[in-house]
């Protein structure tokens, strides 16, 4: 039986826990920071009987899964598909960073591994397409900061490394796994300070917008003829 090297053991266990703890701490502080800003209220009477604040908030939170509900996603299905693939790839890779050290039996069999690798490769490809768009589209380029570029490159590299690490063949080479876990740790530490932390804001931003618009009788939207 193959014995994992102390370095890989540290990278996939202690290092991950430290990075996760760090990320959770920063996130907790971030949420505290968000809540320090006073929330604007809705003192006026409800807009109509068709909907209300909580209904609007729920619909707003789910809107990301309803590409037909927004003109921007409806008119750009390819961009929406990219969004789905990219985020599925990232979510799968995050999940994999827990599965490999603590429940490796869950990723077993060549078919599942091949599927995971394909997902990571596809997500990395989407990342490259998005990077190219960021570099060439005059509108997106004009608003891009170094963080935008770095975050994208970081994720592309991480997804490529995820594809290489997915088979978890440490007996052949620990290289891909070491790269994957060190990158994951860096990712976890960097994320709270970068645009990648947008998912912390997403539920709050969407909830407040939906609550306000629901209270006013706007959300859920009435579809046009």
């Amino acid at each position: 039986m193959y014995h994992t090297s102390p370095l890989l053991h540290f990278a996939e266990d202690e290092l991950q826990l430290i990075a996760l703890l760090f990320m959770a701490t920063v996130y907790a502080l971030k949420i505290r920071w968000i809540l320090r800003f006073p929330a604007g209220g809705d003192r006026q009477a409800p807009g109509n009987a068709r909907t209300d604040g909580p209904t609007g908030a729920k619909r707003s939170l789910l809107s990301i899964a309803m590409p037909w509900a927004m003109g921007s996603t409806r008119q750009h299905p390819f961009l929406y598909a990219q969004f789905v693939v990219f985020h599925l790839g990232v979510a799968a890779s995050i999940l994999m960073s827990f599965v490999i050290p603590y429940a490796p039996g869950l990723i077993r069999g060549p078919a599942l591994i091949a599927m995971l690798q394909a997902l990571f490769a596809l997500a990395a490809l989407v990342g490259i397409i998005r990077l190219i768009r960021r570099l060439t589209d005059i509108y997106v380029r004009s608003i891009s900061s170094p963080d935008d570029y770095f975050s994208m490159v970081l994720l592309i590299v991480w997804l490529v490394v995820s594809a290489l690490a997915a088979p978890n063949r440490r007996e052949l080479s620990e290289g891909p796994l070491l790269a994957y876990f060190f990158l994951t740790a860096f990712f976890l530490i960097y994320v709270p300070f970068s645009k990648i932390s947008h998912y912390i804001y997403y539920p709050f931003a969407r909830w407040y917008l939906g609550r306000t618009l629901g209270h006013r009788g706007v959300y859920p939207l009435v579809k046009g003829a």
Partner: protein
Amino acid sequence: MSVARSYKAQKVIDRLQLKVNRQIMLSLAACVHCGMCTDQCHYVLANPGDPTYAPAYKADRIRKLFKAHLDWTGKAIPWWVGAKSVYTDEELEDLKDTVFGKCTNCRRCSFNCPMGVDLATFNRMARGLLVHVGVMPTGVLHVAKDQWELGNQMGVLREEYLDILSWMEEELQSEYNDPTIKIPIDKPDADVMYTINPREAKYDPRTIAEAAAIFHFAGENWTMPSEGWDMTNFGLFNGDDELGAAVSGRLYDTAEKLRAKKIVISECGHGYRSTRCEGANWGKRTVGTPMETSIFTMLEYIKQGRIKVDKTKNQQPVTYHDSCNLARSCGITEEPRELLNLVCGDFREMHPNRSENFCCTGGGGAMSMTEYAPRRLASAKVKAEQLRATGAKIVVTSCHNCVDGLFDLIRHYKLDMEVKLLVNLVANALVMPARVAAVKPVAAPEKALAGRRILVVDDEPDVRTYLRMIFKDEGAEVIEAPDANQAMRLLKTERPDLMTLDLIMPHKTGEKLYWELRKDPDFTGLPIVIVTGYARVETPAINFHKFIEEKHLPEPDGFLEKPIQPELVLDTVVNILAKKTIN
């Protein structure tokens, strides 16, 4: 090394920290620069290739400030996340150009942002920061000042307002030959307190008369207040919450004082939103009086059988333009359509519509910012195409701002279409009760300007609308030009009998046009009446009298100062044309 910051810039930064609430903070922090909002903005669609119009770019101008002063990473490593503060008054002017001149706060991008970033809300906040230090378009300053000082945004004096109501009451009594028709003022315990947009009093009083006729025939117990009657609110446009609270507060207090059971708000998108939705939040108060838009009131009257309408009276094809404030901020999309289907025979939907509709391009106070008019009209291309595709002859909207915005773009893009409010169509479709309908028709008196063609040249759409109404009422055919170049073209093709001319206009001044016309043998005989808000000889930069003296030009046939007095304008024009005929 710290960089010196101007007094105003420092004030803006100080106030930023006070004005960012949780919703705004989240909108500022959540943007991922994905660019999905880009082609949802009419400015972008009409100006392809210019990234400065993109919603995310405009948002980033404000976001940079937020990151520099309130965001952790932005404070630690500003260059990495694009944080940037403001230091000079020039930078504030540049920001003004973005937040006032490149966005109408229509909220279309907010509805298309996957993250729920609400640009319109924090763009309004940024406007407020600039207004606080006096950085704003001149028109915004004037309108806000009028609303603070006189209680309404068009500077209508109390006496003037009451005169107009009295005039409309007389008109109604004469039109229907019914002395019982009244416009009750300050009547206590009324079921409805009707509040209006000052544009109605100033430029379009017929809408007041039409609403009054509807209330009368519905048998409503209603009133109009003598104070606190302006339901519009420039605080929404200039981001000044204090102004917003003061204006809406006046209206709420009046309703309470009169013990009105309900406030009915005439057709106005931003007015409805401000009074119904925002005022209580700006003033941090609870408003006990229920409020509704007159759209609901008219619809209910028809449904309850309190008024009868005949849709065959409105036979021309009609389309509906959703006001951004009504559709995207107040959820009013279906009632106007229900009403339209009751009062007109050929209603055609515009695409996209409801909350996906494009802005009329006159929203967010844009109509008061004349310096941005060329930009506004260029961006109106999207709306013009939407309108043209319907094939309708009438575009109906429920917003006075939209009326002006649409009217301007219809002229600019030469669409064969007119703009109306719902109240116009409902009043036109009214079926009179038998007693009134039996009135003998009275022969109309001969109109003083019948057969005359008048060219109105003014960059302000409201002024053009008002003059058009005055001249059309007297039977004239009116053509309009928003600037001197268009005026010159129309003079050659339309050959008007008389021209009214504003002096201060973009591109080419009225002075220059006057000079050119007086030098041109084709137009030396054309009567010209100057109608200007800057006529006083002590205004050195625009001393028209000195100008014509220096250039050895003849005096104009008439010279009138704004605010326009309808009788004076009419007398002047009628007399000039009468003299011309005799000569």
